[in-house]
């Protein structure tokens, strides 16, 4: 498995293997997919017999079957009507229960029960990369998320330009990143793993590479990583952030050794204005000039 993951990683150049939402590595994903399966089972119990009944009925009463009686005027039966309404109603009552309980239990804003305090991560969706700010550690990364295994992570998510969706399939629930708004999401990875995260809302030309690596590592390793990162490498100062706001594609992971603690606040409240969008003079701008509609 590790080998496969490594191959996948090499091939992807991004990290994480493709196994999806039904193979969760954390409690939220596990609960989501359990609910998915519960609902699927309830539905299958009713859908499979229905399909079989339809085919049987058509075959049994085929015109060429002399054994089937012909009831040319039969078109009503109160008993069948009652059954016909009850079956879907009962099914939907089951499903309704699942919806009700599940929506409350898996509300993304709800903190996860845990002995250890959650790690805070602030997420900013940019054109077309993800910025992760670790306010407690005073560091930031781009397109790379490192989290301690077994510890809940509390994400505060916003966007500096257009809508995106923050989604790590194997951790569970996704949520929108929206400009001028902060969504919250609580996730946890149970064990060290290499996962793949992405935007799940189309956001423009660079969308297909708006993906990131998620490394869940042992807590001690996380501490070591954060310590080593702090103060090392580039700083996320206003100039660096202004650079980040410009559109760019296929951005490789970066770690910033320092970040303004108010940055996320400033982005979310739009004290720092939103990203500039396409700029024809920007070298990474692709596409025909007509895309600016003759406006230059």
């Amino acid at each position: 498995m590790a080998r496969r993951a490594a191959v996948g990683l090499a091939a992807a150049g991004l990290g994480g293997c493709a196994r999806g939402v039904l193979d969760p590595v954390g409690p939220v994903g596990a609960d989501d997919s359990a609910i998915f399966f519960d609902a699927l089972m309830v539905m299958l119990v009713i859908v499979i017999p229905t399909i079989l009944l339809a085919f049987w009925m058509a075959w049994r009463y085929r015109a060429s079957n002399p054994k089937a009686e012909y009831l040319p005027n039969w078109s009503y039966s109160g008993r069948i009507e009652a059954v016909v309404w009850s079956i879907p109603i009962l099914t939907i009552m089951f499903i309704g229960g699942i919806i009700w309980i599940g929506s409350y239990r898996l509300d993304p804003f709800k903190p996860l029960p845990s002995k250890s305090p959650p790690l805070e991560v602030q997420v900013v969706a940019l054109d077309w990369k993800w910025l992760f700010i670790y306010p407690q550690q005073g560091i930031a990364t781009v397109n790379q998320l490192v989290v301690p295994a077994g510890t809940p992570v509390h994400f505060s998510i916003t966007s500096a330009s257009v809508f995106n969706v923050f989604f790590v399939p194997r951790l569970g629930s996704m949520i929108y990143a929206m400009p001028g708004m902060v969504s919250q999401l609580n996730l946890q990875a149970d064990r060290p793993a290499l996962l793949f995260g992405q935007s799940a809302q189309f956001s423009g030309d660079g969308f297909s590479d708006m993906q990131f690596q998620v490394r869940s590592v042992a807590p001690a390793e996380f501490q070591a990583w954060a310590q080593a990162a702090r103060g090392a490498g580039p700083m996320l100062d206003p100039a660096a952030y202004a650079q980040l706001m410009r559109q760019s594609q296929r951005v490789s992971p970066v770690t910033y050794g320092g970040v303004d603690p108010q940055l996320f606040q400033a982005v979310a409240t739009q004290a720092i204005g939103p990203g500039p969008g396409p700029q024809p003079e920007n070298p990474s701008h692709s596409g025909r000039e007509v895309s600016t509609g003759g406006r230059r």
Partner: protein
Amino acid sequence: MFGKLSWSAIPLDQPIPLITSVVLILTILGVLGLVTAKGWWPYLWREWITSVDHKRIGIMYCLLGSVMLIRGFADAIMMRSQQALAINAPGYLPPEHYNQIFSAHGTIMIFFAAMPLVIGLMNFVTPLQLGVRDVAFPTLNSVSFWLTASGALLVNVSLFIGEFARTGWLPYPPLSEATYSPGVGVDYYLWAVQISGVGTLMTGINFVTTVLKMRCPGMTYLRMPMFCWTVLAASLLIVAVFPILTATLAMLSLDRYFGFHYFTNTAGGNPMMFVNLIWAWGHPEVYILVLPAFGIFSEIFSTFSGKPLFGYRSMVAATLFICIVAMMVWLHHFFTMGAGAAVNTAFGISTSIIAVGTGVKIYNWIFTMYGGRVRFSVPMLWSLGFIFTFVIGGMTGVLLAVPPADFLVHNSMFLVAHFHNVIVGGVVFGLFAGIDYWFPKAFGFRLHEGWGKAAFWFALVGFWVTFAPLYILGLQGMTRRLQHVNIEEWRPLLDLSLVGVGILIVGAVCQVVMLVVSILRRDELRDVTGDPWDGRSLEWATPSPAPFFNFAVMPNVQGEEAYWDIKLRAVESQQLSPEPRYEPIEMPVNSPVGFYTAFFATVTGFALIWQIWWLAGLGLAAAFAGFVVFAWRDVHEFHVPAEEVARVDRARRSAREALLERLGQQGAAT
């Protein structure tokens, strides 16, 4: 002088759109040339372009929808092949082109393929089934059609001049705002949809009025064929929600054109508001499409089982129930926006409640077959394929309605598979079934059965081979709208899906061959009786093709199955009802106002897209002038003399007598 328009708008540097446009333009020129050379223009103008006959308009709608269906399918082929080729590779379509393709695909399929086909069948069938001679507002109907065609034209012009939206078929701001989409693509989308949307709204008004006000004597509400009920429900939905679409897109236009801030990032704009509004239209829209398809299936199940529809009244109830609840579920398209648990619960439950109405319908169709004599003709095959496919699509819909489950697969290939499952399996299968079923009524001959069956099997198998892998890919975490794919493991399923598209192509070819073969062999396939399927509702009381006035005398309906009762009585007494006294008929006169209005609407739309203000003003003024002239016209109707009516109806009666004789012999034999 020409606003933003300049030579750089023509994609001279881009081979794919360039070649497509050139081929397209040559084809169009070829067709126009042929029409001119053969001198068909007067005929076309008189009999089709200016026609206000609901059957002609219905046929033109279906033609438009079919052509656009092929265009949308071509987009689909490009998307599936791009994704299969672009696994750790760039593929052949760069993002700025790929993104236009999926946006155009969705827009074309919903607005310009599915809607015209649905509305086309509504047009063709409803007045015939209600036993009347036309819709409530025949000229308005023609305007509706031509405005829809105008929108379709604008979308296709974007291929050659400028670009189309790159924002998806629902252009969510802020991406669709001028800052992030400065090009004309979104403007093409906006004006194409706005213009055709006006047409659709007028269709809705027209058909609500027609069903409520234009039924023949004895056709009480609870005697209407099921299809008419679904037309009523869909039209009510159109009237209720298309204004929302128009207003929402108008607000986005104000943002883009005049720097308003309805949905912008800055200055207090709220993009989430757009998402709410667009889905407040968007969800009902899917039911606008599928309800008439449900109506088609109801007709087919009953006709081909040789029985009345089981539980007619509960079908009516389920239809109206769906019609109302459809407007209360829109939030399920964005459970993942982080509304609280209470909101998600409420909308999750309301969404799954819709499935109750749908479930009841499925069982009623199944029990319609009970005790029947089921004939597996082409329409019936589509209907059975529909039950199988749609039940599964409904099931995955319910899974998506469970918020925590949706948190895993929202916007994924699973979602893509869900809605194709219901739209292809429900709407498209229904349309193909309906076209096969009513084709003889429109053209006087049946479609070739063998090719029809082949088309069905390829479509069914092709559908599942294309979309079943997408369900799995969605569960593997693959999101929708990827221009290229970074994960090697997804390759096998993407390849498989492409194979499915290949099968679908074969199915599409079968449809075309079916049409050609049927036309060539129309004499063998001729429907001389007017009742090729042993039908039960009034359209089968007319000859095939139906005369332009539909009914020589107004039918007088005595029971739930108008024509079946007439037929039974005739067979029992071995004679037709006595010949009525024929009277002259008043029919609406042709009018060029639809074509004229749409022409100037197209000009205005194009001018607005390119911000050529003087031209936009000119176009609007000209369109308005057309309305004024129309409003002042004196002659609305012409008389069909009684002798002409009698001649047509006597021919019908003699065909019926032959049928009656045959039925009598059959009755004696069994």
